[in-house]
């Protein structure tokens, strides 16, 4: 009896998490009218044209490319900049280094809405409004808090002896960092990279304010746009396909790195 109850509880839990997602996948391979007329039915036959419609006609392919470019661009700047700062903060304490570290941490407390309006005008003033590089730089700025926080902790756990040995062998500060310490910090950098990539891939608010033109849309903006236009066209199949296109890369990356992601999320929250 107790066991049956337990099994039911677990089944309910799995259904409530996976049910809506499964429904999304199934609907994405059904023609629009079938989604409306028989929401429970399995697709027959499989209707893959939804995906090509979403990708080509509705511009999600373009948005997908934008999202990739912006994510990769942000990571290329963020990871070296964050790692260098974190390394110095972790291993070269100087007067004021605690204040700088605290300033980076403080950024995690403020929601971006506080800076939404000033940022909108700042970007206009420096002619980076509605440009990919502009959004990339803003993303880097907003991801630095978390990145510096995690990587500083990571560099502190690396044994000091290695850096000292490198110095004795004649490495200067730069060589010690790039040749010895940075390769050792690879696991930490990988986790932070994955974590930020997922966050930026999903980001909507900043992109909404800073990227108004259609050719600059990131994937979340493209999907929001598709949702509002499909309300009139009611081609729901393409919209469901769009949702799947946005979700699958993230879930795949998450599944590969899930243990590391869990640990990092906990660390971020425990700092709280």
């Amino acid at each position, binding site marked *: 009896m107790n066991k049956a109850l337990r099994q039911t509880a677990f089944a309910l839990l799995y259904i409530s998490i996976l049910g809506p*997602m499964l429904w999304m996948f199934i609907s994405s391979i059904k023609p629009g009218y079938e989604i409306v007329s028989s*929401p429970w039915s399995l697709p027959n036959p499989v209707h893959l044209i939804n995906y090509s419609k979403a990708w080509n006609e509705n511009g999600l392919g373009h948005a997908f490319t934008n999202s990739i470019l912006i994510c990769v661009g942000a990571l290329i700047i963020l990871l070296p900049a964050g790692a260098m700062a974190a390394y110095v903060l972790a291993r070269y304490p100087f007067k004021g280094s605690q204040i700088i570290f*605290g300033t980076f941490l403080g950024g995690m407390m403020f929601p971006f809405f506080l800076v939404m309006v000033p940022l909108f005008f700042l970007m206009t003033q420096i002619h980076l409004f509605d440009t990919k590089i502009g959004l990339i730089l803003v993303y880097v700025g907003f991801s630095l808090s978390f990145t510096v926080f995690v990587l500083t902790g990571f560099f502190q756990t690396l044994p000091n002896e290695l850096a000292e040995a490198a110095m004795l062998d004649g490495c200067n500060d730069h060589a010690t960092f790039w040749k010895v310490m940075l390769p050792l910090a690879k696991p930490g950098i990988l986790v932070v990279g994955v974590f930020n990539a997922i966050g930026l891939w999903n980001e909507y608010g900043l992109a909404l*304010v800073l990227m108004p033109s259609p050719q600059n849309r990131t994937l979340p903006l493209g999907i929001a746009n598709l949702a509002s236009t499909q309300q009139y066209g009611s081609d*729901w199949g393409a*919209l469901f396909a769009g949702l799947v296109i946005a*979700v699958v890369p993230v879930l795949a990356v998450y599944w590969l790195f899930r243990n590391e992601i869990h640990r990092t999320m906990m660390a971020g929250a425990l700092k709280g």
Partner: protein
Amino acid sequence: MDKDSIRFSPAEQTALKRADSHKNPRRKSKRNPGRSMFIALYLAPALILYAVFVVWPLIQAFQFSMYRWSGLSNQSTMIGLDNFRALAHDDHFWNALKHNIWLEIVIGVLVVILSLVVAHALIAKGSSVKWLRGVILFPQMMSLIVVAILWMFIYNPQFGLLNAIFGALHMPGDQKTWLGKPDTALAAVGIAFAWYAVGFYAMLFAAGLSGIPAEVNEAAELDGAVGLQKFFKVTWANLWAMKRIVAVHLTITVLNVFVLVFIMTSGGPDRATDVLLTYLYERAFTDSNFGYATAIAVANFAVAMVLTLIILKAIGRDPTEARDFKRLKT
């Protein structure tokens, strides 16, 4: 937030101690100007980007909130606290704040209860749990945009999953427009949020649960505490540290809920789901009332701070500490 715990984690403390030892790079730096250059050079990229795109706009936010400003630079007027005075008399602002508070209390409590239940499932043993730990964060990994649209479909009156379930069970509620009615819209958005958020808090609580020493559980069971009684008398008290973290994190997250409301209802119908941040967005980017909008952002931040302080005060003390102290004395 406790200053010391932020500034000096144990790892940092060792780093600081290390700094005092004779191998300290900082002492060398007095002899070695190259090292100061190195430090400056390596900090510069991050610091500059952070200062320009985060710190400077943040400072400006507090400044902007004291201006009447429609976006054209020659039309801004310094009006001091007038924006805040106007806010105090703005019915839409109070209406939005009321919805934020409603979400904090009703949906906040719902999320905590669900998270605790799921947390117990997460620390259970058996084959059914193995996958759960991986699956539980799926919703959290999805973009809030996707969550919003997915739940709009679930609530869809024509073909939504929810009405389909009601229809299949022959229950009333069939064909209902959940997001279109003022009395159900806010709750509907809140439940979508709960679906998104529970996994993360469940993981935090699960970490808290597995941190409770086995002796505590054994002692409770020896004393005959089981089930809910054990939960309330023993487990709940022992989760104090995690409760604190979850409460603060959840409060701030709920207060900053924007995307879900913005996409699912845009604050409607008839402002029935308006929250501070959707109202802010409307003021800034529909009405071009940028100074006023920033004042709403500052007010939103102030509310977050006040709520956080209340929570830290309420769940501030380690209940087990006091007990240990007494035990030592006797």
